[in-house]
């Protein structure tokens, strides 16, 4: 077996012409220097004479502009300064991110009265300081220009008093409160109070992507209509049947943290959890799995049944595919080998699958160990049958009043037309949506709720684990918390804040307890012991019987999935999330049809193992459009070829095709795929066994970023930018990577002396501080939380789809996706890549104006006001991490017209006065024509140093946390002063000498970022010695 070869793109796999050309260029496009070389210079669009004319004019104009009088600026202090507020100093308030059941305890960084950044709350026992991309991006939603600014009746502005009066007059009949999952105990009490006041009214919970099957299966087998707590950290063997638990399944922030615990490798005592994944369409979790097997969605039930049978020792039955069969056997073996430390999860919304999964978990002793029935997870509670019943009731005319909070079925219900028709028959419709979403648009009354950063509240993500919401800013608009409305309408005299305070003071031993809980953001009450639950296997036989009667899939099957950033559509109106490249597909700003390389050949006539065809597919953004038909419904979407997808399955992300009223960034982006789902039994199925695909003549451009920042590795002997090995290989030969590095650097002194002998330059001393970072590729799941955190912290511009298409995205931190192995089902490695802060940086010595240079603390500094935009540095950067402001993305030019026709509406929206409130005042907003890049969050470093200086003590790790590190749910990033002996970065480097490597080390750029190689828990044993001998011969 030859050495593992990683590839980022099909062009790289085939070493195609376009790839080899591209890796030599810094920029994706031709530079706009001379339009046509055959023409003489004078005939060119901008000949010399014109150039001189413009030069003269602009000099004169600049002089005239500069000599204008300085504007008079005001400095307005407080009238009465609050004691604890110091202008210019950020305050952190513990609060909770809550969206449709998702609950993450956070700290909101409030600067001069404005929340500008979200950080994880370390005190929270569930997330332990982790966040996700969506949590990080939620602060931008606060300043969304499309938020509803006042209550409306039939779309016209009214006051809350008028709305209350009108609603009171109209409210009647059977009343229904329709919400997404609510896990706030006080809100539940408020709802109960309202329901008690109006007998005959009821509360229906609706989740756009529901976990009905799981809830019902748990009811059938454990007698609890709820979801237990999962403990991935206790699991030595994890088997997932299509559950994307690191990306979108139930509570990914918590699961990522737990999963990473099992994946953290101790070099001295190497052991890891084993994760075997079965899926149909490439997902984030599948990409992280140790072993991954592809199957048709219609086979899920059969696989679950086979796994149960294999676990019980009765062999795999009913599976014909040899690979899949082997996978199930391997999974069963792993599970049985780790009884009591094994866990099976399934993403299917089929009750039978979930019942069988429960049976498997029972058989492998998961209860009480990896699954805790004593503490329930409350992030999803909706059962689709309840909502389907409501739609039927509405259509029957038996619902008089409908109050809607959080739920948006007019967009996300598979039969949205039925819901809309029913809604038209409801006399009084009230929406509490913060924006005029698809459902609110159809409601008579819209009483906008506060953003969560403006709200009071509480949440119980897990039984007994409470987190609290406190406002970090006064409501920006005329909005009111919906609980206040309910309280008012149920005749209560106190408002929700008073209600909440009383509610909790009683539980927490008075106001002091409440204050303390608010300050910490979390409190644990009445924690129950771990419980295995009592399994009732009566339903299992029925579920197993369903296998034989299950519908066989057709020629092509469909999977509808959620994206990490967009979710069920909640992220669609957030420009940061739209521009976040999807970890798996690396596409931005669209949804699309995911097809496998095999299907690409048959459906799209693209053979990606053919260099020319791969280039034609990859180099040109326009992708072939395919018409997907399910029954009567069909949508047309561009097709992307994603390895790791079953050859007879296609995937489409939900959450796109939103109404333009929810935001500029949602307008016209993608198509709504919810319509392709179907109701089967009590739950909505997001898979479909029978779809037909037709290739259309059309093409549609998709903004893929994977091929934008490629880099060559030809300079040295090393062929790999990313390093990966199997656990077996690591155990067999732990120092392999180190020896390989040493061998490679031998001509320049080997590992020890490479720094001094590999260069003509002197070695500079670094007294005091030397900043360093270490990224553990083993625990990095590629979720993208760091990318969004970086956007928020460093005022990184949103550039919009047309600019991403041109390779102009501005992200300072990107997550590269590498494939290796089988083209149809490859292994995936994610590698976060930011400026490496090279000590011998190639960008620095080519800058003609010294705008980028080195600091004595090891930072590669970028000085925007000195940069003249030659882009030499970007051209000379081996990592392609420098970003150029091609246009005026931030609106910082003196001449506003420079944006017209250059940047799209989304970018202009980001420059709105309201949206700009999210900017970090400590970071310069970059102007057009300058280069920018990761600064290691220098503003945080300076702040941390000052904190230590003020206290007259040496710097400690807790003083400085860079934004990506803070956001990471798996603690994959370590950062600190590498000169200090006690710092985490020094310890991380010392403890992992064998897995450690630098990217493109042989260039002698001396990067400041170390990576720890990915170790996959498989038994593969590559025969390196042989491969090396071969290489040497070739070089010989």
């Amino acid at each position: 077996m030859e050495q593992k070869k990683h590839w980022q793109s099909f062009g790289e796999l085939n070493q195609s012409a376009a790839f080899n050309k591209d890796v030599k260029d810094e920029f994706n496009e031709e530079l706009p220097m001379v339009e046509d070389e055959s023409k003489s210079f004078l005939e060119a669009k901008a000949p010399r004479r014109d150039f001189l004319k413009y030069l003269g004019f602009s000099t004169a104009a600049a002089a005239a502009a500069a000599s204008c009088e300085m504007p008079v600026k005001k400095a307005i202090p407080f009238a009465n300064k609050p004691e604890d507020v110091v202008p210019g100093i950020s305050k952190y308030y513990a609060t909770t991110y809550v969206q449709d059941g998702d609950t993450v305890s956070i700290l909101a960084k409030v600067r001069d009265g404005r929340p500008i950044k979200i950080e994880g709350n370390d005190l929270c026992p569930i997330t332990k300081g982790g966040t996700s991309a969506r949590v990080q991006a939620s602060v931008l939603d606060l300043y969304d220009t499309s938020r509803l600014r006042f209550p409306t009746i039939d779309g016209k502005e009214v006051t809350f008093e008028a709305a209350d009066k009108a609603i009171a007059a109209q409210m009647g009949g059977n009343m229904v409160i329709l919400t997404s999952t609510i896990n706030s105990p006080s809100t539940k009490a408020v709802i109960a109070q309202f329901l008690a006041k109006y007998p005959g009214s009821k509360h229906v919970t609706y989740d756009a992507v529901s976990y009905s099957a799981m809830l019902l299966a748990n009811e059938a087998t454990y007698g609890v209509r709820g979801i237990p707590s999962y403990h991935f950290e206790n699991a030595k063997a994890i088997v997932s049947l299509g559950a994307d638990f690191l990306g979108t399944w139930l509570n990914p922030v918590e699961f990522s943290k737990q999963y990473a615990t099992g994946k953290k490798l101790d070099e001295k005592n190497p052991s890891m959890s084993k994760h075997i994944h079965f899926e149909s369409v490439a997902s984030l979790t599948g990409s992280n799995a140790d072993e991954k097997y592809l199957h048709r969605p219609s086979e899920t039930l059969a696989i679950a049944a086979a796994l149960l049978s294999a676990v019980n020792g009765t062999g795999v039955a009913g599976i014909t595919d040899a690979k899949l069969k082997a996978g199930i056997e391997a999974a069963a073996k792993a599970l049985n080998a780790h009884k009591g430390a094994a866990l099976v999860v399934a993403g299917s919304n089929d009750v039978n699958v979930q019942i069988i999964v429960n049976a498997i978990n029972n058989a492998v002793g998961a209860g009480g160990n990896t699954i805790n029935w004593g503490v329930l997870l409350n992030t999803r509670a909706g059962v689709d049958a309840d909502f389907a019943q409501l739609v039927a009731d509405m259509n029957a005319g038996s619902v008089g009043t409908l109050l809607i909070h959080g739920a948006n079925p007019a967009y996300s219900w598979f039969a949205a037309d039925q819901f809309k028709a029913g809604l038209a028959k409801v006399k009084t419709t009230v929406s509490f949506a913060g924006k005029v979403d698809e459902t609110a648009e159809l409601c008579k009354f819209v009483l906008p709720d506060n953003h969560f950063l403006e709200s009071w509240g509480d949440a119980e993500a897990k039984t007994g684990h409470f987190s609290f919401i406190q406002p970090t800013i006064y409501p920006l608009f005329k909005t009111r918390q919906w609980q206040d409305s309910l309280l008012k309408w149920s005749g209560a005299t106190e408002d929700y804040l008073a209600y909440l305070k009383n509610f909790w003071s009683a539980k927490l031993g008075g106001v002091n307890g409440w204050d303390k809980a608010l300050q910490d953001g979390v409190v644990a009450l009445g924690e129950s012991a771990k419980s295995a639950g009592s399994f009732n296997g009566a339903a299992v036989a029925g579920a197993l019987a369903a296998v034989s009667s299950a519908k066989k899939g057709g020629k092509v099957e469909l999977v509808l999935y959620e994206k990490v950033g967009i979710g069920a559509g909640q992220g669609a109106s957030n420009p940061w999330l739209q521009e976040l490249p999807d970890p798996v597909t690396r596409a931005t700003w669209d949804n699309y049809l995911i097809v496998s390389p095999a299907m690409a050949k048959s459906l799209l006539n693209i053979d990606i193992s053919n260099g020319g065809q791969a280039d034609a597919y990859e180099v040109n953004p326009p992708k072939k459009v395919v018409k997907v038909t399910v029954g009567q419904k069909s949508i047309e979407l561009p097709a992307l070829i994603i390895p790791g997808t079953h050859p007879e399955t296609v995937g489409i992300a939900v959450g796109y095709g939103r109404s333009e009223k929810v935001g500029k960034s949602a307008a016209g982006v993608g198509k709504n795929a919810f319509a392709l789902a179907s109701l089967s039994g009590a739950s909505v199925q997001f898979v479909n066994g029978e779809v037909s695909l037709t290739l259309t003549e059309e093409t549609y451009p998709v903004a893929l970023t994977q091929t934008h920042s490629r880099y060559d590795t030809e300079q040295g002997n090393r062929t790999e930018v990313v390093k990966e090995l199997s656990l077996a290989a690591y155990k067999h030969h732990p120092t392999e990577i180190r020896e390989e590095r040493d061998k490679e650097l031998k001509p320049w002194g080997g590992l020890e002396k490479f720094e001094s002998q590999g260069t003509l330059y002197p070695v500079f001393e670094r007294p005091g501080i030397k900043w360093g970072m270490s990224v553990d590729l083993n625990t990095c799941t590629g979720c993208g939380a760091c990318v969004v955190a970086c956007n928020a912290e460093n005022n990184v511009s949103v550039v919009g789809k047309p600019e991403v298409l041109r390779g102009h995205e501005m992200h300072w931190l990107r997550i590269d996706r590498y494939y290796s192995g089988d083209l149809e089902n490859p292994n995936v490695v994610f590698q976060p890549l930011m400026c490496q802060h090279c000590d011998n940086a190639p960008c620095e010595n080519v800058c003609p104006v010294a705008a980028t240079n080195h600091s004595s603390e090891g930072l590669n500094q970028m000085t925007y006001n000195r940069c003249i935009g030659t882009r030499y540095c970007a051209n000379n950067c081996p990592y392609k991490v420098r970003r150029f402001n091609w246009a005026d993305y931030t609106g910082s030019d003196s001449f506003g017209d420079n944006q017209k026709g250059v940047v799209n509406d989304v970018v202009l929206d980001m420059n709105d006065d309201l949206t700009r409130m999210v900017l970090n005042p400590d970071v310069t907003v970059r102007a057009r024509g300058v280069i920018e890049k990761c600064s290691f969050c220098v503003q945080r470093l300076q702040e941390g140093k000052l904190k230590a200086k003020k206290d007259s003590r040496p710097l400690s790790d807790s003083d400085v946390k860079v934004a990506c590190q803070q956001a990471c749910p798996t603690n994959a990033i370590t950062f600190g002063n590498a000169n200090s002996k006690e710092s985490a970065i020094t310890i991380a480097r010392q403890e992992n000498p064998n897995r450690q490597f630098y990217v493109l080390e042989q260039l002698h750029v001396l990067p400041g970022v170390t990576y720890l190689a990915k170790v996959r828990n498989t038994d593969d044993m590559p025969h390196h010695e042989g491969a090396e001998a071969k290489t040497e011969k070739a070089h010989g």
Partner: protein
Amino acid sequence: MILSRSIAKASIAAFLFSVSICFSVAANAQDGKALFSANCASCHAPHKKLTGPALAGVEARWSSKENLYSWIRNSAAFLKTGDAYANNLFNEYNKVAMNAFPTLKDAEIDAILAYVNSVPDPSKAPVGAGEGAAAAANVEADNSLLFGILTLILAVVALIMLQVNSNLKKLADDKTGQPALEPIPFWRNKAYIAMVTVVLFVVGGYLTTKGAMAYGRSQDYQPEQPIYYSHAVHAGTNQINCQYCHTGAAQGKQATIPSVNVCMNCHQAINEYKGEKMYNEAGEEVDGTAEIKKLYKYAGFEEGKPWDPSKAKPIEWVRIHNLPDHVYFNHAQHVKAGQVACQTCHGEIQKMGEVKQFSDLSMGWCVNCHRETKVQFKDNGFYSIYEKYHADLKSGKIDSTKGITVEKIGGTECQKCHY
């Protein structure tokens, strides 16, 4: 000229002498100053009665130092002992009780007292120092004038010599019988034209560059403010500590302009101006009492009635110090970590009526200071990580008189201020 220079020399010497005396005392009172600022300055000044009495010479007024210590630690308890001086004092200051400072140690109180006594009385301020500075400035002005005149004289001499040279050459040529060329008038002489062009280019270029760099800078900017607030009265005459009002200076980026409630802390009681006459920049007299009434208007305060702070409206001051957006400046870094005096950048603010921008706030000005100023290398624990420098200082490898400057630890690197 010679006479004036000798005077200048003498005054510089006097100035340096007085400074050195100040330093010798300051060594003892270094902590005292900080303690005084932190604990006492809101009610006391060294030479001026505020809420409490002027503190200079306070030990002499008390019967024993022990009594003074216990008074400071807990005045209410000490009053109960029936000490006559203490009770008189209490009555004299309208029975306003002094805050208790139970944590202050004897040594700390001594340091405060030492500091208080080291502060010169402004009413008897030695006149020499100020004049010395002025004279020193004169010397500089004289020098540049001198150089100018010298340059001019030399230029004229050079011109004459050139003419003489060419005449002599002509004579010599005549003598040897060389055919004389028609003399070219100097305005058509290419050498002269080239020379003048070069000079004009250099001078013009210098002036243009200098002028261009000055765009956007506003040294000496002294706008009219909504209230004639005199730093001379508050910080000078009344010796109110800068950080009593500018509370943010030691904490964060902004020094912060005090809010109305801070003004009203004192001005609820101080409702008229009784000090020396004040004159604004135009030389017109300013009615201090009227200015206090302006404050009352902003504060929504009616004399004789209790003040309701919720009625206050913020005062829209005109911002004087404006740094460009791409510059990060942090007051705490300088005031707290660097222990830099406010006056270093803001000038003698305690003598300004309306504040003007003292420094040009240019990058050159910042960088110069960073090159010369020493950091608190030994006193601040943060710098303990620079082990090599500490060793070099000890071994004499680094000149300890020069010390560790801000530049030495990277204080002139781009990303210390631009990010």
